[in-house]
């Protein structure tokens, strides 16, 4: 149904799409695979009219088509689920869906009619949402469903899904896939982007790999393996599970006792939590999102005041300190919402890297910034973590999603902290970079940092952690050894079943 031919798109200093050919047939899931910054989102934004291609042609059902803006795309039956959600948080589901559509009641809104249709679509495709709920009250998984409903409501026949699973829990991913398969069987064409190879293998019919803006290969899913895809993407063999030696845990570096943290919307999100993390170990925290992991991380970082309890970092009580003071006790923090809490979009890459160290003497020369030293440090981190950016002076918002992540992780892992709290450290980064980040985490551990790693990705939790704590409803359900525990066990604990009941 769709044919893109010879698409080329240049940004200042980058060739984001280089003579790309891409097509989609009805009733197939065509996956786009590629490293961070390979040009996947760019290609899709061209198709959706958010960017204009410098060269190339788009044909839909054989007709040449010029898509200048999203309205053109929508009228031609193209829908897009964006990497960063495109929802208006204070508006309700129905309002978000109705936005931009003609109302059956002229100038007045027709939200009741819209709501009815939302419920119908929800029943057909298993996308259950409450049409009158405002978006800000919903979990990410539900928000995702609203995004899909928005596209289906507009009768999209070609659906672009740019990393739809990056923020979903494994259960939500399963649900999403049921819906997507149903759409495929109904004859829709789907374009799917993900860095998680097992998802790609489970859902796709065809896989095209992009590297540095160029198509490097296109294969049917039959016969493809995780290893072969990784090899095509990165251009070398990738170790999918990190090598690591036995941990040599030392003293307790992070000690949490009786911690209670309130949620934004009232009620305690973390309830009487005790936890010890030793120097030289990685404690993985598994759990379905929304079970208090975020609140725990923010409380440790001083971003959220606990209502009770104590947190000690290297023997110093940090409850009541400002985030900056907490950092000086030896904490490094990779926040989950990196776009919001971790980077300043209008600042350049090197400014973002400098953010936490700006009082450090290395970068000051008689009280003024020593730009030479800053550049050198930034250059080194950017190279080490393969952050793809045209220059160090590029504003961070022009980087691809995964490269922003890498930039922040590079910054936070660059020192020698006593304690590192890393929330979803590889969410949205490509497998090559994930491999590197895992290796760095383990190296950091071997240098005696106590690491608390929060992750919803069980592969990551099992592959990297020395001990695994499972959180459920604000409490630790139990701590298991990843070498002996099974995924089923941990899965049950994540659902709230006590450890001894599972035995």
């Amino acid at each position, binding site marked *: 149904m769709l044919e893109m031919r010879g698409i080329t798109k240049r940004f200042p200093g980058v060739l984001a799409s280089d003579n790309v050919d891409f097509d989609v047939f009805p009733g197939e899931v065509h996956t786009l695979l590629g490293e961070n910054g390979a040009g996947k989102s760019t290609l899709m934004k061209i198709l959706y009219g958010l960017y204009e291609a410098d060269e190339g042609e788009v044909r839909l059902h054989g007709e040449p088509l010029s898509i200048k803006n*999203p309205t053109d795309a929508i009228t031609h039956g193209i829908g897009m689920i964006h990497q960063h959600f495109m929802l208006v948080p204070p508006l309700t589901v129905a309002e978000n869906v109705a936005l931009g559509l003609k109302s059956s009641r002229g100038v007045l809104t027709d939200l009741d009619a819209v709501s009815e249709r939302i419920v119908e679509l929800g029943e057909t495709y298993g996308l259950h949402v409450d049409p009158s709920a405002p978006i800000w009250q919903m979990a990410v998984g539900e928000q995702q469903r609203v995004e899909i409903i928005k596209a289906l409501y507009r009768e999209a026949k070609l659906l672009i899904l740019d990393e739809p699973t990056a923020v979903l829990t494994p259960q939500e991913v399963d649900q999403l896939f049921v819906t997507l398969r149903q759409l495929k069987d109904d004859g829709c064409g789907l374009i799917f982007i993900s860095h998680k190879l097992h998802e790609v293998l489970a859902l796709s019919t065809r896989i095209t790999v992009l590297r540095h803006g160029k198509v490097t290969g296109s294969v049917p899913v039959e016969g493809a393996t995780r290893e072969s895809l990784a090899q095509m993407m990165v251009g070398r063999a990738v170790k999918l599970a990190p090598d690591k030696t036995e941990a040599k845990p030392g003293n307790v570096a992070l000690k949490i006792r009786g911690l209670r943290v309130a949620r934004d919307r009232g009620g305690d999100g973390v309830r009487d939590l005790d936890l010890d993390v030793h120097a030289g170990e990685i404690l993985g925290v598994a759990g379905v999102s929304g079970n208090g992991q975020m609140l725990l991380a923010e409380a440790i970082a001083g971003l959220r005041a606990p209502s009770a309890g104590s947190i000690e970092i290297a023997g110093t009580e940090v409850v009541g300190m400002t985030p900056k003071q907490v950092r000086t006790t030896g904490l490094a923090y990779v926040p989950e919402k990196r776009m919001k809490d971790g980077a300043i979009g209008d600042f350049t890459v090197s400014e973002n890297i400098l953010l936490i160290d700006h009082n450090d003497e290395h970068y000051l020369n008689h009280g003024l910034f020593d730009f030479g030293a800053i550049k050198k440090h930034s250059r080194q981190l950017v190279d080490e973590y393969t952050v793809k950016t045209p220059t160090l002076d590029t504003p961070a918002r022009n980087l691809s999603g995964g490269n922003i992540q890498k930039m922040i992780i590079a910054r936070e892992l660059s020192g020698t902290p006593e304690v590192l709290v890393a929330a979803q450290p590889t969410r949205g980064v490509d497998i090559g970079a994930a491999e590197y980040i895992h290796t760095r985490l383990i190296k950091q551990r071997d240098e005696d940092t106590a690491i608390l790693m929060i992750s919803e990705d069980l592969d990551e939790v099992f592959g990297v952690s020395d001990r695994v704590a499972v959180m459920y409803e604000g409490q630790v359900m139990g701590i298991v050894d990843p070498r002996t525990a099974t995924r089923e066990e941990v899965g049950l604990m994540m659902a709230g079943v006590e450890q001894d009941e599972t035995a």
Partner: protein
Amino acid sequence: MSDFFTEAVLIATVAGGIRLAVPLLFASLGEMFGQRSGVLNLGVDGVMLLGAFGGYYAVLKTDNVWLGLLVGVAIGVVFGLITAVMSVTLKAEQGISGIGIYLFGLGFSDLLFQKWVGTPLPIKAFPKINIPVLSDIPIIGEMLFRHSAVVYIAFAAVPLSMFIINRTNFGMKIRAVGENPEAADSLGVSVTKVRYATLIIGGLLAGVAGAALAIDLKIFQQNLTNAAGFIAIALVYFGAWRPLGVMGGALLYGFVNSIVLQLKTLGIIPRSWSDIAAMAPAIVTILALVIVAQRFKPPAALTKPFERGR
């Protein structure tokens, strides 16, 4: 002080407060539309001054107060459009361009006044309309239902604004564009068109506010508004970007102002204090703003120009 609590004085104070609230109500409802769509317009006071002079001059020449109000509308629309060109199309820094419009309005309205009028001559005022039946209710009737048509129009604009913002498609687009312009754009809503529309509404209401003020006072002079346009901006924050809240703020300001005026006329506030007393309404409003407004969040995209594919 006991002089103040007589029936006649109380009625006059309340009625006066309502009248004084009118120009602010127009102006801040207008500013609210712009802000709900994500544009902070600091030029309100300048447009009010131009509308005030235009309205005054038209009435002076024609003796027709409605023509005066219409001139205010026209001037407001033109300057709303200019504001939109600067802050939406040219993506100028919103604070600076607004101050530019303010300074222009302040200077130009006075210049035209000096050139075309010179000595301030009084003009005709709006006729009072007593609402049948209602205006005969004792006390309340006199306070609320014996005003000019402009007062009724201003208060009718409150439910109308609520209706537009909450019940119409256009209102939904305004809210969406003010909170997440990227999302609105991705659904084919033109951020540019919506913002042009709200800024033109804002300009129109600021022009009307100015004309209503001049015709109500029956006079024009340099800086007639005395920064009322800036108070109007503060009232939008005070009212948490909602028409009813904005109305509450305008009434609070009007009442405090009216009380101070009464106390002065009755000699309860000594003459030497009158400068300080003149500041009371602004101070009370700002204090209330600080207390009330912290609990509400402004539209997320306020002051941010929009560009696709950034």
